[in-house]
């Protein structure tokens, strides 16, 4: 209960503060142009942006799920002993295969 109230409270306070500290923005058309060192763009900058490491992002989404299992594992680690270590070792070893495969395919570079 307190957790949620505190988090909501800080968020609300920060939003109010940030709003109070930032006066309304206002500018003319030449002033608003994106900065390119004097150059001009042809189009809007918002685009179907070619995010280069997209395979990495997908691998990451799958790999990161392991955290969901690791947090509860950490809590019972000492009481479960060596069995916990072995089970998590196996789990991480399985996932590491995926990372090694991705590395071999070169997905950690800009595609």
């Amino acid at each position, binding site marked *: 209960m307190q957790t949620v109230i505190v988090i909501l409270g800080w968020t609300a306070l920060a939003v109010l503060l940030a709003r109070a500290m930032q006066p309304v923005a206002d500018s003319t058309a030449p002033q608003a142009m994106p900065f390119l060192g004097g150059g001009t763009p042809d189009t809007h900058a918002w685009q179907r942006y070619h995010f280069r490491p*997209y*395979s990495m992002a*997908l*691998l990451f*989404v*799958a790999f*990161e*799920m392991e955290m*969901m*299992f690791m947090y509860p594992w950490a809590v019972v680690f000492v009481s479960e002993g060596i069995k916990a270590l072995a089970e998590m070792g196996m789990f991480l070893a399985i996932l590491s295969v995926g990372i090694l495969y991705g590395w071999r395919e070169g997905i950690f570079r800009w595609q």
Partner: protein
Amino acid sequence: MTLIIVLLGAAALIGIGLYGALSQQSFVMLMMGLELMLNGALLAIIGFWSLYLGGMPEGQLLAIIVMAVMAVEMAIGFALIVAVYRKRQADMTESIGTLKQ
């Protein structure tokens, strides 16, 4: 009473998610509909677990599984979209059909 509120909210999320999954032409938006439905399922599971099942550990595990399903769905779904886009330069659901040809 709390459980009913939570479950009604879950039903609404599933309804909106279903609407999105059926109506959106774009594959990516369709996935958002699916995620929203899973969100509703997650809310229902949390509600049931907490207020009806008296905190069975399997309930929490089910919630984790739902999240894992979301991650798998996202990773494979987007990988498919990338593959289809590479072939067809389109992300519409209709263009998946032309892959068969």
